[in-house]
């Protein structure tokens, strides 16, 4: 299985995850999003020409609403860059191949690269109903958003994974000398 950028030549029409919203986005808008408006990027999991899954990400910023100085958290009082994972789907025929995990791994590696190249505080995911426990398993925590929630309906649950935890996980995964 290879994870690569979506190409205009990819035949997306037959992709079916079983979720109408995810399929409609992939069929109709993932290309526009990426090739025309440049406001998000879709990566696909492929085997030959067969599309097994996709994930769409975009750069975003996390901003703490204005509060009196003494009530402020330690998070900087200016926007911090984050990577927003907007959509992740796997084709029904690819069940059991670990496509979702491979795509999530790819996104977390993108966040690490983004942190190194121009800054990233963590990964924000818009978790679909029924997927909250999946992301929670990988340390994403449910958060409340005051502004900037996803326009998708039914409303997804925003969850956040700080970059510090991703880095700690990478360090733990390295073989001990």
């Amino acid at each position, binding site marked *: 299985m290879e994870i690569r950028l979506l190409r205009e030549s990819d035949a997306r029409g037959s992709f079916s995850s079983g979720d109408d919203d995810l399929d409609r986005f992939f069929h109709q808008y993932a290309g526009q999003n990426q090739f025309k408006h440049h406001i*998000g990027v879709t990566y696909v999991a492929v085997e030959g020409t067969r599309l097994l899954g996709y994930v769409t990400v975009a750069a975003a910023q996390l901003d703490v609403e204005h*509060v009196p100085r003494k009530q402020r958290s330690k998070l900087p009082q200016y926007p911090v860059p984050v990577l927003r994972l907007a959509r992740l789907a796997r084709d029904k025929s690819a069940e059991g191949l670990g496509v979702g995990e491979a795509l999530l791994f790819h996104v977390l590696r993108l966040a690490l690269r983004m942190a190194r190249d121009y800054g990233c505080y963590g990964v924000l995911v818009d978790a679909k109903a029924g997927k909250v426990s999946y992301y929670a398993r990988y340390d994403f925590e449910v958060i409340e*958003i005051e502004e900037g929630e996803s326009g998708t309906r039914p409303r997804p649950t925003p969850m956040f994974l700080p970059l510090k935890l991703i880095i700690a996980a990478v360090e733990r995964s390295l073989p001990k000398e």
Partner: protein
Amino acid sequence: MATEVQISASISREVKELLEKRTRATGVKKGHLVEQALLHHLIALDALPDDVLVRPRVVISSETAAKIEAHASGEPSQALVALMGRGD
């Protein structure tokens, strides 16, 4: 449009009736209404609907920021360690 051309298309009887009802009610010429409707439709096809846009600015409360900070100082789960250790 500077130059007008004629097009022809077969449409359902129901849509034709709606079109005629509308032109009778408003006095707008049929050709003008068809042209405007087509234009709106083509622009809409080209635009991204609100629900597919990924909003770039996310505002959180100070309480949520504090919750994120506390979470960041914790330990990664075994599942996350295994995921990040999977290699390419």
